[in-house]
């Protein structure tokens, strides 16, 4: 039986691919229930206003309307992952244009939309602030008068509309500047990026006669849905069952509440199933975006290229509600040193309330806003010192066994190898020497490095052996389309010695799945994967225990054999298959085999003696991952257009459980990174989002992507990761903008410090 090949390391097609390609995959909006109503949300027409009255009588009088709910009906139940500052429907005040103020359920979409127009809400407008400078000015209106009394899950100082002040200090930057031979300093500005998942937010809620509400929705954590719906409607979690059908992308945008509370409130008000699906425009205006950032940074190095000091001030535009802002600001602070040994750092990061759409989690989670500053300053230092940018980086990169800031140990760190691989693959040394001259179209190549983490918070897994010896895996982890179901099944099958098609995967369902914090932070393969391995090992231990009874031997003498068998060590012919063992356990003795595991990220602690840390909103965080990305570009000096010609991307991932899926993640992240670097930008005209459509907000299409993306996987197994794997989801988006800025500087000598690098901004910069 040596023809068994472990599923780990195989680039098998994703389990749901066939359903998606043939249109069979069921997303929330594809679902229907008997007697179902359609819900529509009424947005605020003002950026900042007090609600002075509601008149819903005309809407209720319309034929086919079943119910209208407002903030008055659901009550002042505040929600929020870091600061409880928001209600599912506005109560008392609205703080951004597009904020949900009411919801209506009717027999069909047309009637519901018509009713929504008839809901008459009166407002008294208040002064509004649309950027972080205005929001932090001495005379700025307070967006949240009750901020001091809000429940917060972390401790930090705050100042006016700056909801948190996060500080990390190590060494002494002021003393270090004097030892620097090269110092660069600059201000950088980044934009709001829309998640632009293909599937707009959708939820279907149904209530039973005991008042228990079932919610099928598009999300990144079925447990978050349960928690924020419970909080927002004042219900016990036991009255909510949350389920996740297929999800058409999320990228961070569906990590917190979307339309689930409104759907549940309408189901409760009507007693009937209600489905709420946003239009693309409402999704743009109502849900969340990436934080616009303003970063000031200063970096210094000794004459030999040793980086000595970095000082950073980060201001993130959080929009009207905190959402994941303290987390994003904390991670931006943690990553802004870059993956380099810099002994003197002084970092401050502030998320600031403004009267715009809330900002939240988005692939990269604070990394992209600081990478454009940090990684272009490294190139500027190299330039000043006459060093090659890769040589300078190799001299300073963190190495295995070293510590991150605030004393988090790095057990593995494969960044040097990523850099060497990219350098060789892209022909760096020759291309950097080639100087573009003349005018017209100029070529250049640039590079950036990325640090990230993949270990944080909690996960669990249940592996049950079915009567016939096949298995079912349940982790509660939502597959957002990145392929985690497939990868977790591969891990489970490999740990049990089974084939992939002998392991079924359960739909995330709060009634039956073990807790998983979320599909976020590049953590599912690493965290849920670890739980799967341990649960499978628990199942194998139980199988051995049953087999020992059947074979009348000691458990210690038994071994797991490929193909789903347990045998006696050293006796090849003495073995029984899972089918026999499972039949015995189900019908004779021992009971059904149910392997379980639950874990919290257990990496190294912060070291309070190493530096000063204040306001950081996470506990343990780690399983560090690294990447290096290079982009070759052509710059059209007549129009300012940057054309990316090719991308090289090397990733320290521990082990590729499914190399095809890993490459898909890298390629997808790069394309989203190209959009962030070159064309994606949500633009506000005072409080009004000026481009809430795919006609006006542009993401790159297939013709805008370079014909070749060269992905390289650096595999140095992590000692704790499942089969050595770490995460990969976020880093691929992060390095593209700085690598392009560095490539443009190489091609033209012009340095771009504002994203996106649109042709207009490039042309203006080229013309000085």
């Amino acid at each position: 039986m040596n023809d068994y090949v472990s599923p780990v390391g195989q680039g098998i097609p994703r389990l749901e691919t066939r359903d998606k390609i043939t249109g069979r995959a069921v997303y929330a909006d594809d679902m229907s229930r008997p007697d179902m109503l359609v819900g529509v949300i009424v947005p605020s027409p003002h950026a900042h206003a007090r609600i002075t009255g509601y008149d819903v009588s005309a809407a209720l009088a319309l034929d086919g309307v079943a119910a209208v709910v407002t903030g008055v009906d659901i009550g002042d139940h505040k929600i929020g992952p870091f600061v409880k500052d928001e209600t599912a429907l506005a109560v008392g005040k609205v703080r951004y244009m597009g904020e949900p103020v009411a919801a209506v359920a009717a027999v069909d979409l047309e009637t519901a939309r018509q009713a929504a127009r008839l809901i008459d809400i009166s407002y008294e407008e208040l002064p509004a602030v649309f950027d972080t400078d205005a929001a932090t000015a001495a005379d700025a209106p307070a967006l949240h008068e009750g901020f001091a009394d809000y429940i917060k899950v972390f401790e930090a100082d705050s100042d006016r509309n700056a909801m948190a002040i996060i500080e990390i200090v190590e060494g002494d930057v002021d003393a270090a500047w004097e030892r620097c031979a090269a110092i660069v300093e600059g201000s950088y500005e980044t934009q709001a990026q829309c998640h632009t998942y293909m599937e707009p937010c959708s939820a279907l809620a149904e209530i039973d006669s005991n008042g228990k509400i079932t919610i099928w929705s598009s999300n990144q954590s079925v447990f978050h849905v349960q928690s924020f719906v419970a909080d927002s409607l004042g219900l016990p979690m036991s009255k909510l069952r949350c389920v996740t059908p297929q999800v058409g992308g999320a990228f961070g945008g569906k990590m917190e509440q979307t339309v689930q509370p409104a759907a549940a409130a309408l189901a409760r008000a009507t007693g009937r199933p209600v489905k709420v699906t946003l239009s693309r425009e409402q999704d743009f205006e109502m849900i969340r975006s990436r934080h616009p950032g303003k970063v000031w940074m200063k970096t210094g190095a000794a004459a030999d290229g040793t980086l000595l000091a970095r000082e950073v001030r980060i201001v993130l535009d959080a929009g009207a509600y905190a959402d994941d802002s303290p987390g994003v600001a904390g991670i931006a602070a943690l990553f802004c040193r870059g993956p380099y040994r810099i002994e003197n750092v002084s970092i401050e990061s502030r998320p600031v309330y403004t009267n715009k759409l809330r900002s939240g989690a988005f692939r990269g989670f604070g990394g992209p806003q600081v990478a454009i500053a940090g990684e272009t300053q490294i190139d500027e230092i190299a330039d000043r010192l006459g060093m090659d940018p890769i040589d300078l980086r190799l001299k300073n990169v963190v190495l295995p066994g070293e510590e991150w800031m605030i004393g988090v140990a790095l057990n593995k760190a494969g960044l040097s190898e990523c850099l060497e691989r990219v350098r060789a693959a892209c022909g760096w040394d020759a291309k950097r020497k080639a100087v573009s001259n003349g005018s017209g179209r100029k070529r250049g190549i640039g590079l950036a490095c990325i640090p990230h983490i993949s270990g944080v918070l909690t996960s669990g897994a249940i592996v049950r052996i079915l009567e016939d010896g096949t298995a079912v895996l349940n982790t509660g982890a939502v597959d957002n389309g990145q392929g985690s179901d497939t990868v977790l099944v591969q891990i489970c099958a490999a740990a049990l010695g089974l084939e992939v098609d002998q392991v079924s995967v359960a739909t995330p369902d709060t009634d039956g799945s073990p807790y998983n914090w979320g599909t976020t932070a590049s953590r599912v393969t690493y965290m849920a994967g670890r739980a799967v391995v341990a649960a499978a090992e628990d199942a194998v231990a139980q199988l051995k225990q049953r087999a020992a009874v059947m074979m009348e031997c000691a458990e210690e003498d038994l071994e797991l054999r490929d193909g789903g068998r347990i045998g006696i060590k050293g006796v090849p012919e003495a073995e029984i298959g899972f089918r026999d063992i499972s039949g015995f356990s189900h019908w004779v003795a021992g009971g059904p085999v149910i392997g379980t595991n639950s874990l919290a990220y257990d990496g190294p602690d912060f070291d309070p003696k190493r530096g000063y840390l204040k306001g950081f909103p996470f506990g343990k965080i780690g399983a560090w991952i690294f990447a290096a990305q290079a982009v070759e570009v052509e710059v059209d000096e007549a129009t300012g257009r940057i054309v990316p010609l090719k991308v090289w991307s090397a990733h320290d991932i521990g082990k590729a459980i499914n190399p095809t899926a890993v490459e898909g993640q890298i390629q997808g992240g790069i394309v989203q990174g190209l959009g962030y670097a070159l064309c994606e930008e949500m633009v506000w005209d005072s409080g009004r989002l000026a481009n809430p459509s795919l006609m006006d907000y542009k993401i790159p299409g297939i013709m805008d992507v370079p014909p070749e993306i060269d992905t390289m996987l650096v595999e140095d197994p992590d000692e704790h990761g499942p089969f050595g794997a770490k995460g990969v989801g976020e880093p691929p988006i992060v390095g593209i903008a700085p690598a392009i800025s560095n490539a443009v500087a190489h091609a033209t000598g012009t340095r771009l410090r504002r994203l996106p690098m649109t042709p207009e901004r490039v042309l203006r910069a080229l013309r000085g």
Partner: protein
Amino acid sequence: MEFHGPSTVDEAVSLLAADEDARCLAGGATLVAMMNADLVMPSALVSLRHIAALGGIAADAGGGLRIGAMTTHREVADAAGLDGAHALISETARAIGHPAIRNMGTIGGSIGHGDPQADYPAALVALDASVELRGPDGARAVPAQDFFVDYLETALQPGELITAVTLPPSPAGGFGAYEKFARVEGDYATVSVAAAVAMEAGRCRYVRVALGSCGPIPVRAEDAEARLAGTALADEDVAAAAAVLRDACDPVDDVRGSGEYRMMLVEPLLGRALRAAAAKGGAR
């Protein structure tokens, strides 16, 4: 809302004339999107889909070309054997949106909408095209240059519809080129330039130029053409012509770029369009 599917132009005209809030429906790519966004709420839709007389591309005996109003962008893009400058219309159609839009949208719908960011208007002006209309008072032809009146406003009168676009014979030795600059592939143009040029012994004997997305209607400047005529299209000639054209522009600031940036694009794109058109002649 009512829906009609007439099979003759006369029927369509009488339906439109009878109800001033009725709209004709061609590919629906724009109209249906506007209805979904509550921007227009027609009382009736008059579908032109079943009117055979509105389809097809045909050459006339004199070398002119007639393109029926319901011809899709894809049909124009794929049209074979178009002579000289006429190929500009195919090149323009290939630059519109992406395949799904080219399969749906029609030339009548595109110009009937009157959006100055669209691709056809500038090309039709550069080709000296005419727009054939039919209304309650009969048929008439309007030069493309006069058909576009203002932003989203055309010479169409109540009850009138577009039946075809006609192109005069291609100027002898003439070739065209369409230079579209957009944020990403498939977006509306930030600026576009349509040029039709005939070269003789390295000098420009005939030239027509029109700009898209540079004002409420396609921008043409006869003085700019006069400045180019007789030249070898050298950098200074292009620069001088661009300066004249810029004076005629009145671009807006929007998410595709500021008006100022659009002005900055006029000269390089004009140069590229003219040289591409001239080069096609050279390749012959």
